[in-house]
């Protein structure tokens, strides 16, 4: 019985459609998967890549995603870091193309501000609701 289950699993794995077929084929940009020679620059690039959202597989960062578009975006980030651009300027460069959506670190303005302020607001609300507990019994 167990063997049958294993066999079924193996068949299912083989039967999986090749996703790469649905993404065309082309050269992967050189810097997509090759680290920068300077460790400090690579570290900066890596931080930027972890904070940018992949356009194709929307929940992942471009550092984690294997999608072709993520590869292109990684190469762009590394190239701009190598050219001496500041991480924040690169983040802005991406936002200029895809909007706030592309960043995992929303700016402190508009609805983003609410997001940042929410913990503080909730804490104040909790203190207000619990204020009776701090009062000395008379």
């Amino acid at each position, binding site marked *: 019985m167990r063997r049958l289950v294993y066999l079924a699993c193996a068949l299912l794995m083989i039967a999986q459609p090749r996703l790469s*077929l*649905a*993404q*065309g*084929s*082309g*050269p*992967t*940009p050189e810097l997509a998967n090759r680290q920068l020679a300077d460790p400090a620059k690579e570290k900066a690039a890596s931080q930027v890549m972890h904070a940018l959202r992949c*356009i*194709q597989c*929307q929940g992942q960062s471009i550092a984690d995603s294997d999608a*072709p*578009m993520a590869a*292109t*975006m990684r*190469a*762009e980030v590394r190239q701009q870091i190598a050219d001496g651009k500041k991480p924040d300027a690169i983040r802005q460069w991406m*936002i*200029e*193309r*895809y*909007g706030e*959506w*592309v960043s995992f670190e929303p700016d402190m303005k508009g609805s983003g501000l609410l997001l940042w302020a929410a913990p503080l607001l909730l804490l104040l609300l909790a203190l207000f609701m619990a204020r009776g507990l701090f009062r000395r019994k008379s």
Partner: protein
Amino acid sequence: MNRPWLLWLPLAVVAFIGGLAIYGLVVPKDDMVHSAMVGRKLPEFSLPPATEGVEGLSSRDLADGKPRLLNIFASWCIPCKAEAPYLEALKKSGAEIDAIAIRDKPEDVAAFLSEFGNPFRRIGSDSEMGVQLKLGSSGVPETYIIGGDGTILYQHIGDIRAEHVPMLLEKLQEAG
């Protein structure tokens, strides 16, 4: 209980959360990533021809004074096949269409054009998707309206269907 209104607070909270849930169900979700480049000048680029017998595409070709459509497609993309007749219809109505082929091979592009027709003036090959990234484009197919001065005026995400043809023609007309 000296504050009877407090009794209603939990109900209000639950009603608010329920309202959010209903809102999420009723209002259609927009999963598309829109380009933030609309209203701005095309980025500079120069792409080689996507296959034999066609001309490549550069940003300068798109800023020669005449508004036109820029179609982002690929031979491996199924909705691109579905929109082919409507691109043909747009061309017949007088629209000039340039194209960028994404991650494609010359022989595949040639086969695609011979099967589904070639409504394009020029076709550039963006094999590494670098130009697609600069355009703020998130997938295939997409169709942009480019003004005569090379400004990106409009982005249509997804395949062009019959109902989009008059809208695109109208916007193209408005462009000049």
